[in-house]
């Protein structure tokens, strides 16, 4: 019930992100979501792609330091209050959010949230109990077809 996120180490300099995306383009990888975290001297780019294992292989060949992390993806309705409801469920159950980002799917009125938490199992359990079902990588891919 998780999706595979790829995290990549990038230097904090002009053009670093462009070089990275050029590699994805060259290898025909489809980018579903992207988020950037930066410190003073480096950044971590986190992406969701259609084929994570192939992407990792290509990136490693190109000399990037990268890793796969299992993160939670949930579909929420694209309307006011939907995000609050989900976050309240996590907060009420003491699930701490490390980071999070959103993207839109092809389906109308629907958005996805990517959630990185310490304990995936616990987060999935409390979300499911409250009627929000996290999706897996294949489910997500179907949404883009």
């Amino acid at each position: 019930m998780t999706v595979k996120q790829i995290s990549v180490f990038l230097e904090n300099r002009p053009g670093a992100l462009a070089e990275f995306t050029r590699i994805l383009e060259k290898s025909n990888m489809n980018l579903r979501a992207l988020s950037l975290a930066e410190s003073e001297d480096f950044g971590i780019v986190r992406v969701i792609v259609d084929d994570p294992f192939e992407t990792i292989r290509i990136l490693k060949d190109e000399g990037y330091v990268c890793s796969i992390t299992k993160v939670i993806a949930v579909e929420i309705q694209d309307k006011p209050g939907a995000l609050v409801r989900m976050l309240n469920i996590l907060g009420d159950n003491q699930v701490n959010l490390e980071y999070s980002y959103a993207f839109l799917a092809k389906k109308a009125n629907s958005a996805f949230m990517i959630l990185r938490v310490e304990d995936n199992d616990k987060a999935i359990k409390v979300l499911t109990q409250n009627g929000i079902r996290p999706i897996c990588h294949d489910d997500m891919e179907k949404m883009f077809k």
Partner: protein
Amino acid sequence: MEHYFNPEVECASREQITAWQNERLVKQVERVYNTVPYYRKKMDDLGVKPSDIHGIQDLHLLPTMTKDDLRDQYPSGLLAVPMSECVRIHSTSGTTGRRVVAYYTQNDIDLWEECCARALAAAGATKDDVVQVCYGYGLFTGGAGLHGGSHKLGSLTLPMSSGNTDRQLQFMTDLGTTVLCCTPSYAAYLTESINERGLRDQIKLKAGIFGAEAWTEEMRRDIENGLGIKAYDIYGLTEISGPGVAFECSEQHGMHVNEDHFIVETINPKTGEPVPHGEKGEIVFTSITKEAFPLIRYRTKDIGVLNDEPCSCGRTHVRMSKPMGRSDDMLIVKGVNVFPSQIETVLLNCGYPANYQIVVTRANNSDRIEVQVEMTPEMFSDSLKEISAREKQLVTALKAMLGIYCVVKLVAPKTIARSEGKAKRVIDKRDLYKG
């Protein structure tokens, strides 16, 4: 008018200085041969006996010593008196956690303090002066040396130690400091602070003694003009005693070596052959009056030139130039000795690869050291927090090893320049030894 602390010695004839050196060297060699097994072995290995040494003309027959010998004999293998005769130690940081520990008898302390008193007197200090010592106190010799010298001279001594600029400036203005002792970079920083705060007309400084790190003539001019003082250089190293091994006089052209205590030579760092005065060579000292921790022909790794021309100040002791470079890879950053191998040790201990680069810069007369490390799959995480925490651990470990703050910069794999398959470890952009 030139001030001297001990004019009979400082202005003695060359014949007199040589006579002192001959007598003291012969005694010292005999003593270390008989009391320190390590020296005996080194001399035996070379087939040299104390009876072969009749005076300074035979100095070249003796084996040289390096920091490696000191580390090898850590902590007390080179002690030449019973431990009960020692009253103090000082220490420098060393590679792989092994420090150099120097021992002092009361007599060693007295002689060292006299050397510092000579330096203070040469800078114009008398018993009527107020001497503010902002070198670090503790294991470092800077604070203790100038503190003791100031006492010997009878000056009012302000044992400030380093840092806390607000307090430094308050004492400087309230107590009317006339002589400042600190590293040149801190002097430059204080100069700026004084002028920024408009304190220039409230200070009574007339001179400063600035050592423990390399500084340029431009820096001297900045400090002198910025404070309206004369700025003097001082040289020393813990192994030989501490600051005051050599010091500048009013001429400000080279540092007089206290030759009644230290014989100075220059040698070719590659062959070990003596280099004549006036030519560049590695500076080598023999401490001929030290009791606890005498060193025979200690190679400083500092490259410099000796000058035996008469000096306008009236002192007769030979002058050494400012160090013009190093014959090893040691860096002096913020007055602290830094070896790249120390940084390498920390990196490996913290799980980083040994592929790194050290970049040293100086802005506004203050040193900055940056350690660039390549990111590895093992050290990587999707969490910024985790990577930053590891980075902080590394900064803390570097601080513990070196005693100074280093900036850590994580860079992408294979981005550190490699030349001929070997990485260029150190980029020193300070140009300290220029000209």
